[in-house]
């Protein structure tokens, strides 16, 4: 009977359009997954062949349906972004059906050519490569490790950074990285006694340093854009903050960052920090709301947004209220996960006129029902950079016709604060 039922199921499937690996599934995976899921890359297994994919069909169906993979936290319709890694409902349905049908391979003639990838540096050979001074030991087990490595640039003159690419060394344990530029010399002091040039840090570098780049699995390094560059004064130290996730076996890492230099910028950029330190969440409070806003003192183009909070934050909304009273959503992350921090670049810069108010509204769940709560039972959570503290901010990256416009914008903004 069972065999008969099975045959009937297959026959019924054959009459309806049955998705096959070659025709339907391979194109989805090649386009959206293989960038990381290929040999030597950051994902734990490859998804380049039928065999590798078919045996994981159930897992692939589960994680894509839950939208855990591919990792992309921004809700569609709230900001139009570049390099979106979000499968469509139709693609999800195809994967579900393919897995349910017993993973048919299909006709070899339907199979697309495997994607071609660049090994090593994605942006080409960097002008300068900086590597952590010594191998950093990551334990097999235990809490995640957050380490800030300080690498002096020893520049003779100011330099103009046009692009930056982070290259993880031990891809099994490196989870994500943020790169900061420190001109205060404070990070260097913090790291002074350490052989690996580093110190423990969690939310940020613990010093007033500007964010210049980052990396998380799946992120495509941004190519230089004509006219733009970040000016690095000659006393700049790079602070490389790396989040390590213990993998089950002791590991060592010596990751690198590639820097690309160019001419002095002819256009302006300004990174605005929007947020609030007014965080005091009672233990058990499942719905603490943090609000912050910023009026724009001049016309500006928003090119990117990087929201940031820690473990108990669950929902992030940033909206622009235009002078005419209308609302333009800039981003909505419904299920914030500290492990998937991302820098989001708009498909086209968002033009925001003078007088626009940017509003941030983050919601936190400090109850025991939140599995990501680092405290059990929950404890009072206040602002700070430690794992047990919270933050609530968004880095807003604005573009201007000239560097002078950016400077004027920044001055007006801080004068109004």
């Amino acid at each position, binding site marked *: 009977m*069972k*065999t008969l*039922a*099975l045959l009937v*199921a*297959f026959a019924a499937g054959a009459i309806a359009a049955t998705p096959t690996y070659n025709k339907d599934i391979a194109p989805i995976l090649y386009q959206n997954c293989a960038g990381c899921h290929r040999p030597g890359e950051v994902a*734990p*297994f490859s998804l380049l062949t039928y*065999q590798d994919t078919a*045996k*994981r*069909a*159930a*897992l692939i*169906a*589960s*994680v894509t349906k*839950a939208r*855990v993979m591919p990792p992309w936290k921004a809700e569609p319709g709230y900001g139009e972004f570049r390099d979106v890694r979000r499968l469509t409902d139709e693609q999800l349905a195809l994967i579900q059906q393919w*897995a*349910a*049908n*017993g993973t048919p391979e299909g006709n070899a003639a339907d199979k697309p050519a495997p994607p071609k990838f660049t090994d090593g540096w994605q942006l080409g050979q960097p002008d300068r490569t900086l590597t952590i001074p010594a191998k950093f030991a990551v334990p*097999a*087990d235990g*809490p995640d490790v957050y380490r800030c490595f300080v690498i002096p640039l020893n520049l003779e003159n100011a330099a103009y950074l046009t692009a930056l690419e982070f290259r993880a060394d031990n891809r*099994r344990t490196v989870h994500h990285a943020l790169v900061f530029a420190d001109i205060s010399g404070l990070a260097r002091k913090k790291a002074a006694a350490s052989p690996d040039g580093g110190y423990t840090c969690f939310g940020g570098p613990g010093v007033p340093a500007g964010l210049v780049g980052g990396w998380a699995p799946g992120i495509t390094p941004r190519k230089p854009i004509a006219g733009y560059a970040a000016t690095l004064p000659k006393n700049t130290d790079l602070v490389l903050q790396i989040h390590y996730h*213990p*993998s*089950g*076996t002791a590991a060592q890492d010596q990751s690198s960052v590639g820097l690309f230099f160019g001419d002095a910028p002819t256009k302006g950029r300004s990174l605005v920090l929007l947020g609030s330190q007014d965080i005091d969440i009672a233990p058990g409070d499942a719905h603490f709301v943090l609000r912050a806003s910023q009026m724009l003192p001049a016309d500006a183009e928003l090119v990117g947004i990087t929201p940031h909070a820690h*473990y108990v934050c669950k929902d992030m909304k940033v909206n622009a209220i235009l002078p005419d009273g209308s609302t333009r959503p800039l981003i909505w992350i419904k299920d914030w*996960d500290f*492990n998937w921090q991302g820098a989001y670049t708009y498909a086209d810069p968002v033009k925001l006129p003078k007088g626009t108010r940017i509003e941030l509204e983050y919601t936190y769940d400090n109850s025991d029902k939140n*599995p*990501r*709560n*680092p*405290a*059990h039972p929950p404890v009072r959570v206040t602002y700070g950079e430690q*794992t047990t503290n919270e933050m609530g901010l968004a880095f807003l990256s604005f573009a201007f016709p000239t560097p002078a416009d950016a400077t004027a914008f920044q001055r007006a903004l801080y004068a109004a604060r």
Partner: protein
Amino acid sequence: MVPYARMAALACAALWPALLSYAGGFPQLSLTDTTGRAHTPGEWAAKRAIVLVFVSTDCPLSNHYVPELNRIASSYGPRGVAIYAVQGDATVSDAEVRRHAKEFAYGFPYLFDPAESLASFTGATVTPQAAVLSPRGELLYLGRIDNRLEDFGKERVQITEFHLRDALDAVLAGKPVSHPRTKALGCAITRKK
């Protein structure tokens, strides 16, 4: 998933008469570990409990647990608990399984199970998943090791429930396991087609 489930059901249906006819409840098998030693259910008769943990070489969810499994092995081993890792992906080469067992420093036997007989016997479906058996082969617990993974993409910063340890504590105390089945999340155990 339907055909997979049905195939598994068919496989089980084929195996069950043999299993039931075996006096002790265990399938009659001899499995080799990654060091070349053979193991049979005979060595389990003198134990107070047997733990089988289904694992795979390239599943990070499974690999994360090796240090905790080693701790469980060293803490429960002296109290009469035999613990084994069981290969949960028969499509991976033996050489790769051996290399992996060495790299992750499994401190207890890691069994090859090319016919997936232990997965069929216990009903395990994913890696990592733990089964606790009595020396007579009764399945006393099947499920997750602890609640680190609340859901795909939702990892607990602090683990609050230790299901495998709790099950072993209950068995060693001669008490029933309070939650004999929990939902394990992980990478599917590869069923041969």
